[in-house]
């Protein structure tokens, strides 16, 4: 790394500044990791005493010439930017992501846990009718697809989850989805007493769909 000749004229300073090759590395790392363009003054402030970032920038600019990335000046600050001619590669970066609606999440969850499942079954489990748009959206996202028709009267179509779905959620298979008990023991679902098994649900009825905390029968050696 110290192949570059150290800066020739170093200002008189108590401490010797790092060799220019090192300084170039530093500038490179700072420009890479910082979220905004960085001024020379700021570089100087962040680098060890006696460094000459302006000179390091010259070397760095030369180093990136013709590369996929170039050193550009933005106002009085510096930044590394991808080469303009490669902009066409960035299309995938411009995706706007939105959170899936609760209805869609629930429908998706039911398909995942109960597949193959018919629309009527989804409605029965959710206890509300499922709008056409919700399933369409999931199909469009390629998380849900049509399965075989059920061999029952009316031969209703069924829904199953796709490989894309598994990939997106980092699952090996739909069967690996944790069950309720496992969700609970992993802490993903507040545990609460099962009705009829002793403790009666607390009567502070806060909302109807938020999980009620059960005051935790803390195990003695619970870790924190």
């Amino acid at each position, binding site marked *: 790394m110290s192949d570059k000749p150290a800066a020739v004229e170093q200002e008189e300073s108590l401490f010797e500044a790092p060799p220019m090759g090192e300084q170039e590395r530093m500038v490179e790392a700072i420009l890479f990791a910082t979220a905004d363009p960085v001024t020379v003054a700021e570089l100087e402030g962040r680098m060890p005493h006696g460094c000459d970032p302006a000179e390091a920038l010259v070397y760095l600019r030369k180093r990136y010439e013709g590369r996929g990335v170039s050193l550009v000046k933005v106002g009085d600050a510096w930044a590394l930017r991808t080469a303009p001619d490669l902009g066409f590669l960035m299309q995938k970066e411009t995706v706007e992501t939105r959170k899936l609606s609760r209805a869609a999440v629930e429908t998706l969850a039911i398909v995942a846990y109960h597949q193959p499942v018919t629309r009527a079954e989804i409605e029965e489990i959710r206890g509300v009718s499922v709008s056409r748009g919700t399933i369409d959206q999931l199909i469009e996202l390629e998380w849900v697809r049509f399965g075989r028709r059920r061999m029952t009267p009316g031969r209703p179509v069924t829904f199953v989850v796709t490989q894309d779905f598994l990939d997106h959620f980092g699952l090996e298979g739909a069967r690996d989805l944790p069950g309720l008990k496992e*969700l609970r023991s992993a802490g993903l679902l507040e545990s609460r007493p099962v009705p009829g098994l002793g403790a009666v649900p607390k009567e502070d009825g806060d909302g109807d769909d938020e999980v009620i905390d059960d005051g935790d029968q803390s195990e003695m050696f619970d870790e924190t």
Partner: protein
Amino acid sequence: MSDLETFQSDVNDRLAAEALIVDVDGFEGPLDLLLTLSRTQKVDLRQISVLALARQYLAFIEQARDLRLELAADYLVMAAWLAFLKSRLLLPPDPTEDGPSGEELAAHLAFQLERLSAMREAAAKLMARDQLARDFFARGITEDVTRTRRVTYTATLLDLMQGYARIRTKDEFRPFVMDREKVFTMEEALSRLRGLIGFAGEWTDILSYLPEGWEMDPVKRRSATASTFAATLELAKEGKIELRQGDVFAPIQIRKKDR
């Protein structure tokens, strides 16, 4: 103030007595405690004397028990097991007896300790590594070229699982009002009893006054029993009925009081 002083000196006595005893809460379970004790043998975990270790543990538990009665069950279970192991190690093996030998059990314990210790070291090594956003950094300016604007929807596995859990546990959620479905109030019991006591010329068990449909479900039954009982007390106070109970836990009976 003097109370505080007494308290303070109590604490000091206790602390002195426990000087050599590490608070059991400081350990993450019996295996952790055993591992700590084993360190005092200052040998490779593979050469550790499980017998000596068992003795140390039992002594520790004995002493800790004198001072703190609330010692956790886990620790006592381990103590019992180690006492058993100790006897197995000390007594000559009984050829007629089945099951693993003391040596096998001791070897397994030594293995568990070594494995736990190894995992601790591995964890420490892992945490000592250079870490992202602490020692090395990702790109700060991510590309913001907005050319094709495509909207995608996203959800996390957590959303999914919680969504599912929300649906599947919906039946368990009983808001306050709904919960009352299984509660038979004292007012209800009173009005029911008032209508019925006219027929109670003879001693009858109060349980026969439970409303229909409330006898089977244990939660409903409990509620109805309690409110009916309370209602009978109220009626007795009003002088409308008499109450009697033959023995502790015997059926409680009521009878209309003739004026």
